[in-house]
């Protein structure tokens, strides 16, 4: 199940120990060889210059004894020069005899450098007097190459040992941490108590990312399961809601028109919610990335808001001490949002306000245009929210006051509004009240057909 198995981990070690180190050694050896060869060439050039000077000096030194017939002196001078370790052989020949011969060379021919010249009585080289040659032994230079290569080889072996040791120690740590990563991968979870502290920052970061991804996946799976349930509920309530609507239509003579409108609207809203749950479920199944596709059809803010306020005013009849007022100057103002989402947001926020004022209080729902935005304000004079709570109320799970509140309403509202490029602001003071303001960008597209939900709402209002 794990991505890295032990056998594969070893193969990485083999990669470094069997391929990387030999490459390092080969490149180092090649460089070392080139350097040794370069040293040889430089030393050889210098040596040849020096030997040329030695030879020229010897030619001058031995010339006079030869001219004066002091052959022994010439030989003595040659022998003195032959003490030079670089000289393998000296030959001197006069007109009449060989004065110094080269019987045996000290070394093989590979390192020998021979220089020779004729000697003359006169400086104008007109009268030949003899011939001298010196054979220099430069085999030590070639030996020097191998000596240098040998020295470098020892260095390289030491380097290889150090590399081997260093990489082995490094790999043991990598292997330990890879094993831990494999455990995380295999279990798809991380036991923070058991997981060792990673020393390699990349592995530590990877482990954190894996843990986070696993948690997200888990949450996604849970969300999907919840959606499955919601879909089933939505599917199952569609039939009784249709029956309810038919019954309401049939009973329209007996019911107060306002109540009838509210009932119609509520039934319609439940139907919209159910339809939306089903459509979201379908969309999430079809989306390759599992993301809900944002539908950006324009809807009339004025109509949707009036419907919701009317519904909530009807609800307020049971609590006469609570008054709700609405004021809007945003006729023909459209925002690109699903009408059911909009209504759910407004419904939740008015419910929160009703809860805050409890049995007595005022709730004002106003809608205005500010520049290119539509601003909906829900203001109550209820109990208000403490400063500490206010800071976290829009975060996930933030809730205030409601006995069974999970905080999902506000968190969901914020997420949905922001998806539509809007924003939500809450200001509150304990004992004074709370104001929630929603800013949504106005739609510039007026030629599109408005959402069905709005039309249904209009029909319900007219009715």
């Amino acid at each position: 199940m794990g991505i890295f198995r032990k056998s594969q981990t070893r193969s990485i070690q083999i990669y470094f120990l069997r391929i990387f180190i030999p490459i390092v050694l080969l490149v180092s050896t090649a460089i070392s060889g080139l350097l040794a060869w370069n040293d040889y060439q430089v030393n050889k050039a210098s040596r040849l210059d020096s030997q040329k000077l030695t030879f020229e000096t010897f030619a001058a030194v031995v010339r006079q004894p030869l001219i004066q017939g002091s052959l022994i002196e010439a030989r003595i001078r040659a022998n003195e020069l032959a003490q030079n370790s670089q000289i393998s052989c000296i030959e001197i020949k006069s007109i009449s005899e060989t004065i110094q011969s080269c019987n045996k060379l000290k070394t093989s021919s590979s390192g020998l450098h021979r220089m020779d010249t004729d000697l003359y009585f006169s400086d104008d080289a007109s009268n030949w007097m003899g011939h001298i040659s010196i054979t220099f032994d430069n085999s030590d230079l070639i030996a020097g190459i191998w000596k240098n290569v040998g020295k470098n080889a020892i260095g390289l072996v030491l380097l290889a040992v150090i590399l081997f040791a260093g990489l082995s120690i490094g790999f043991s740590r990598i292997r330990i941490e890879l094993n831990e990563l494999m455990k995380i991968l295999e279990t798809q979870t991380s036991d923070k108590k058991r997981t060792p502290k990673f020393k390699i920052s990349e592995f530590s970061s990877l482990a954190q990312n894996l843990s986070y991804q696993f948690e997200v996946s888990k949450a996604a799976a849970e969300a999907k399961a919840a959606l499955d349930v919601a879909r089933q509920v939505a599917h199952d309530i569609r039939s009784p809601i249709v029956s309810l609507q038919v019954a309401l239509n049939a009973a329209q003579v007996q019911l107060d028109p306002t109540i009838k409108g509210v009932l119609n609207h509520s039934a319609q809203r439940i139907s919209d919610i159910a339809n939306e749950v089903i459509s979201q479920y379908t969309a999430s199944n079809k989306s390759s990335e599992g993301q809900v596709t944002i539908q950006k059809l324009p809807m009339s803010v004025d109509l949707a808001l009036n419907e919701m306020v009317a519904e909530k005013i009807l609800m307020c009849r049971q609590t006469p001490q609570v008054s709700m007022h609405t004021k809007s100057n945003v006729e023909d103002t459209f925002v690109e949002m699903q009408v059911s989402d909009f209504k759910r947001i407004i419904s939740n926020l008015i419910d929160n306000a009703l809860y805050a004022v409890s049995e007595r209080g005022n709730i004002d729902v106003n809608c205005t245009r500010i520049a290119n935005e539509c601003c909906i304000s829900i203001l109550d004079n209820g109990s208000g929210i403490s400063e500490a709570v206010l800071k976290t109320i829009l975060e996930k799970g933030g809730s205030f006051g409601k006995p069974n509140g999970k905080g999902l309403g506000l968190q969901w509202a914020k997420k949905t509004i922001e998806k539509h490029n809007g924003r939500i602001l809450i200001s509150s003071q304990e004992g004074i009240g709370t104001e929630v303001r929603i800013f949504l960008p106005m739609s510039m597209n007026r030629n599109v057909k408005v959402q069905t939900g709005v039309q249904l709402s209009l029909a319900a209002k007219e009715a």
Partner: protein
Amino acid sequence: MTSTLSAASPKKYGYVPPTFPRDPAEVNQFAEHIVLGQILEPMVDTDKLGNVTPGLAESWTFEDKGLTIKFKIRKDRVFSNGKKLEAKDIKYTIDRVIQKKSQSSNFLGSISSIEAPGSDSLIIRLREPNVSILKALSRDQAGVVPIDWNFDKESSEPLIGSGPYRLLKKGTNWNLEVNGKFPKASDISIREWKLVFFADHDLNVPAIGLPDYVPGATLSTKTGMQKVSGFEKLKTVSQISYAQTSAWWHPHGAHFNSAEMRSRAMGLIEEILAKGCKKLELERATGVIPKGVAGHLAVTDAPKVTHKKYEKTEPLRLAFVGATFDDFLKGNDVQAIAKEHGFQIEIIKVSPSEMGKVAEKKPDVIFAGWAGGFNDPEGFIALLPTFLGKDFGTYIGPAMAEKYKRARQEENWTVRSELFQQINAQLRKDQLMVPGWRIPFYIIGQTNMISEEATFRYTPRLHLVKDL
């Protein structure tokens, strides 16, 4: 070009000894050797460092372990009388130098025979190996003359050679004129020299008219020239010098076999020379071989001189050769110093031309100054019989004579140098010789004629002097 140069007035060359010209075999003055070197060419030559170079012989080989030397003679040399120079001329010259017991014969004693099998082939055979034989043959006195030639003092050209100049008599003057048969004679800058002679036989007094060019001038010559008007316009440079003085316990003296007398007398000479050199600020010599030549002693190791009280004085005859010692004697009360050593000194002055008669004068000590003639220790030892009137080997005794023989034959130049050093030191230790002082030489002449090249050679070559 040549005619223009010929038409120019001759330059004056000085100084020439009054004895000149004479038979080259008789020449024994450094100043005469210099003039000979302009007229005659030796078989081999030397460069400014004393190294042997080809002369009339263009090449040679040593055979029979150095006992035979075969020379190949140049074919391009012609004597001033128009006769082509051949090997037989060289044979005649060397034989003549030896047979006439010239100064140079002392250096050529190892030659047993000379053959001239061809016009350009000469063979010299030696009795014993002689390392310095080539240097000895480079002496100006051994310059080649035509076969059967003899010196004729009455001739207008008494010396016939193949050198760059001819010696010609013009009226009462002797002139050196370019030898047109000399190779590249047209390149010689100064076409004619008029010879200027010393005013006395002791080579001490320069002539009144100052020469244009004076090589080999001694300190006394220079001092004499300074008294003549016009000297201030001349330039003086030091010339290489291997000349020095020394005093020798003479084998013909009355006390030669007395070790006690020798010790007393040579102790006195040590004191005289030490005081004199110090007073006159002369550079002291260290031995018989001068500084700069292989075999010379690095330091003077003078025997300790002790003073005793002598009731009566013994006569001591001191011979002084040439004018070299005149200035030295002037500044020292030699007689007073001698008295402290129990001697009454008698001074005998000997002219260089009278060297052959020194033995007859029976001096106890002879003072002489000389140059070896070539850059070799043998050049200073072999010349001694001229002063001592006795074979050097006999003079120094059998033990040192054997060492001297080895030194002549030793081909290892370092060992040879050491042997000569030992001989040198032994002469000092045995008090046979007391070193005198180094004789400086100068070239004095017109400013535009003094060139560095001319100053290097021991006997300068006039054909290299340029009239710039």
